[in-house]
């Protein structure tokens, strides 16, 4: 069982990202689950979304999770949300930030000694998609860090997931995914 927790603000696309990832993973024969905590669902409110991936049908519906990966797609949540909640010894963090990994850890000491990767998904999204929607680039970074799928296969699969969007937006998403894949450190 692979478990992923997303930290996001409502409107940044964590739910879409989690469902998009589930869609791609499902095509490879694995079983998936994607869900979120909504609360009162105000745009901009801190929220979490979740993925489970397993070789057999996912029957666990508890919301409690000890994540293998924590994906933070809003830079400020590192300081205001409990992103290390219920972590394991080997939980891997991928954080959207303009800072380097060293600068990030210096600014948030509770990440010290943990496996932390950084990538500026907000900037990548703004420069490619034209909006601060950091979800698809984060998936590119996850592919690099986790080695879950070959990046070309992943982009091809995401292309199908996004197929209802205008071509221009799909192309921009593909560039964003590749850039985050290349730039995550």
């Amino acid at each position, binding site marked *: 069982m692979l478990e992923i927790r997303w930290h996001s603000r409502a409107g940044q696309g964590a739910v879409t990202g989690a*469902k998009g990832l589930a869609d791609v993973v*499902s095509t490879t024969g694995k079983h998936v689950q994607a869900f979120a905590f909504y609360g009162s669902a105000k745009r901009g409110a801190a929220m979490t979304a979740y993925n489970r991936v397993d070789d057999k049908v996912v029957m666990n*519906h508890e919301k409690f999770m000890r994540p293998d990966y924590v994906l933070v797609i809003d830079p400020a949540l590192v300081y205001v949300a409990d992103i290390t909640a219920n972590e394991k010894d080997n939980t891997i963090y991928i954080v959207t930030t303009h800072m380097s990994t060293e600068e990030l850890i210096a600014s948030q000491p509770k990440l010290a000694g943990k496996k932390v990767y950084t990538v500026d998904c907000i900037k990548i999204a703004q420069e490619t998609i034209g909006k601060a929607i950091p979800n698809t680039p984060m998936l590119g970074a996850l592919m690099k860090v986790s080695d879950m799928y070959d990046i070309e296969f992943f982009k091809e699969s995401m292309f199908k997931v996004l197929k209802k969007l205008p071509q221009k937006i799909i192309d921009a998403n593909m560039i964003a995914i590749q850039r985050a894949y290349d730039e995550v450190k």
Partner: protein
Amino acid sequence: MADTIELRDIEVWDGNMAASHALRQVQVDVVAAYPITPSTPIVEGYAGFKANGYVDGEFVMTESEHGAMSCCIGAAAAGGRVATATSSQGFALMLETLYSASGMRLPIVLNLVNRAIGAPLNVNGDHSDMYMGRDSGWIQFGAYSPQEAYDLNFIAFKVSEDHDVRLPAIVNQDGFMTSHTAQGVHTLSDEAAFNFVGEYKPMNDMLDLDHPVTHGVQTEEDWHFEHKARQQHALMTAVIPKIEAAFDEFEKLTGRKYNIVESYSMDDAEVAVICMGTSVETAREVAEEMRANGVKAGVVGIRVFRPWPLEQIAAVLKNVKAVGLLDRSSPHGAMGALYNEVAGSLFNTDTKAVLTNYIYGLGGRDLTKAHLVSIFTELKANADAGKPTTPLQQYIGLRGPKLSFF
């Protein structure tokens, strides 16, 4: 003629999307709705299908849930295939009309996405609304996952519209835990799905102008009791066999097997929990882990909540020593409904299992695997002692001091 949609064999859908596609595939004539969280995407999706030419029927936005069900009743009496969706307070506002629908013997399918009932206001999942509809005369199915929310819609139409049944049916799914949780759903083609349910065959329809009928009549002391007795007779005798037949036919079509009462690892179980919704699947996973630790644990899932499967429940619990009844609704001054129903099902049998009641998950409070481990552990102690070792009703997952009664 409505356009068809080519679905993949496995779609990653949440329960709402699954229900929405099921309604599209059976080509409902009239969906009348007043959207409410967390059921909104069902009718939102359906309206989208309608707007994009995938549905031939009508979609009616009403001024309230009371109006939505009233519109469904009118359309069903007129002779159409009819469906809607709601949750929580919306279901509460429908309640008066639910009794009209069942009393008038109108087949209507209601997707009830289970949510807490305020106050305090809460949009998350529990079974308060399902329990509120218990005595309304509707057939009630329970789904544990998006796949089942999809499948049970087809079953619900088939059974509800059967001329020997003619009773409305609710398909329950857990708010958010199913409705907003995306998982793999094995799909039916549009053609196979429609053919399973078949063309709608009206009965006593008001639009059959050659055979005028009256719906919604007044009966006082002279006939009211006989009408209600016939309704009960249909629920108690006609429904279960029709559901079993529909389950068999569905298994032939899809390979997916449903049962009136679902039992998991119950053949040699010493202890068991009985629950509904997503909790059934989580409990199954925990029961397997308990077995690895030497506790003969099993799980019983209620698939058909109404009519209550009294004989099937008694049969599956025959050899069990301790049972935990898990109610996801505040009983407000009584033991939980599942406790009372199961106790009533066992009382005149030779089974003398120790029964205890757990109230959990109100307003979407998480039921964790750790909670279930502690429940199974307590049940094992009850089985060994041959009597309750805990209070009869306990609150699970509550903050603050422990709360229990009796």
